[in-house]
């Protein structure tokens, strides 16, 4: 590990001032489950300063206000897993964090770190985009709110400017008649990176007709977004296996339209279709 300067600000203002002052060599440290691994690499672009924000208590916790859930970025995956609010109003997010890493990783890793690291396999992102999450970024010169669906430009790259700190994640509560799910394909059960994943939300009216459908694949498209082409196949219809199969095939086609055919397409093409179908079936 190369030597680095270590800072532990106790407030958001202090952290933002440090970010502005230290410039490009500074790296924010939250749960450390990615940053500490990076720090051990001998690459030239390893951070020269670490800004450890874990002492900022205002960045921790899960709150509700009328129709909204607010998750602060330092909330760990374990805290999300145990949160009654998340279990009630965003159960697909709970399912997603349950499959992240291992207990040790979930005890340290944070939702804010998962978003800001911006890996294509980040498991909290598909559920959050399906939920319509928005995030607030703060810097020494101001703050702004961005829809999470517009935050990522490509893997590991976001629209966050140097000097901006993620301070809040918020999304509308799922209505009580909505059903949601998250499915992931990994190479094993624990400590497994998502090869493909799907977040899904379905809402039916009293006659069983689908009034809302949201499908967000993970690790399959250049950036995360809802696949409206597949969602539109569902809305206005009663759910059937055939319909879900069709929606899965549509997601698969869309994926290939972005990625082209590569070595992994042979398995990803059928598997993403089945994952989507299963995720939709889970929304019962």
């Amino acid at each position, binding site marked *: *590990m*190369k*030597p*680095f300067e*270590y800072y*532990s600000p106790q407030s958001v203002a202090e952290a933002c001032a440090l970010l502005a002052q230290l410039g490009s060599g500074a790296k924010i*440290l939250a*749960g*450390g*489950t990615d940053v*500490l*691994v990076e720090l*051990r690499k001998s690459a030239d672009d390893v951070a020269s300063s*670490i800004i*450890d924000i*874990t002492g900022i208590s205002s960045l921790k916790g899960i709150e509700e206000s009328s129709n909204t859930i607010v998750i602060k970025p330092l909330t760990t995956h*374990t805290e999300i897993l145990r949160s009654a609010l998340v279990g009630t109003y965003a159960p697909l997010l709970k399912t997603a964090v349950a499959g992240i*890493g*291992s*207990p*040790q*990783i979930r*005890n*340290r890793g944070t939702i804010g770190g998962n978003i800001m690291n911006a890996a294509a396999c980040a498991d909290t992102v598909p559920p959050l985009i399906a939920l319509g999450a928005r995030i607030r970024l703060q810097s020494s010169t101001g703050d702004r709110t961005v829809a999470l669906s517009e935050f990522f430009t490509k893997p590991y790259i976001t629209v966050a400017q140097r000097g901006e700190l993620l301070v809040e994640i918020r999304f509308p509560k799922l209505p009580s008649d909505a059903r949601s799910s998250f499915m992931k394909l990994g190479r094993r*059960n*624990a*400590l497994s990176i998502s090869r493909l994943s799907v977040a899904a939300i379905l809402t039916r009216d009293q006659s069983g007709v689908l009034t809302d459908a949201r499908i967000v694949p993970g690790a399959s498209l250049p950036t995360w977004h809802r696949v409206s082409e597949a969602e539109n196949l569902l809305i206005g219809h009663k759910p059937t296996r055939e319909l879900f199969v069709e929606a899965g095939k549509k997601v698969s086609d869309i994926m290939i339209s972005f990625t082209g055919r590569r070595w992994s397409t042979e398995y990803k093409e059928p598997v993403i279709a089945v994952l989507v179908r299963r995720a939709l079936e889970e929304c019962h």
Partner: protein
Amino acid sequence: MKFVLIRTIINGRQYDLEVTGTKRGCEIGECGACTVLMNGQAVNSCLVLAPQIDNQEILTIEGLADGEKLHPLQESFLDHDAVHCGFCTPGMLMSAKDLLDHTPDPSEHEIRTAISGNLCRCSGYQQIVDAIKEVEGVSREQ
């Protein structure tokens, strides 16, 4: 509960406090050999910087036994031959303690999930699961 200083790694230097129970394995948070309890929760100590444990409660394997008297989990590991080469054992025990502290009567699934971040290269998982399942007399007080 007793507290023993943990051997952590910072700035490429290892401060050797002659506390060697916690094992250094992969150093990327995958193997769980370095697991310790931080404020009662299992964490990979390779992913925690030394200054981050300032004023935090850290329990390493050295603090598990009460002097010469082994912790019931350690007794159960011995009874079930749950130790082969022994390198994963300190981490396994700390993960198991976190589990039993929060879930006194875990299902087999909960046990397997609890140790899913601890790799045993001797692949002696069954004995380890049995040892955790059949541990007796675990004190549930903190």
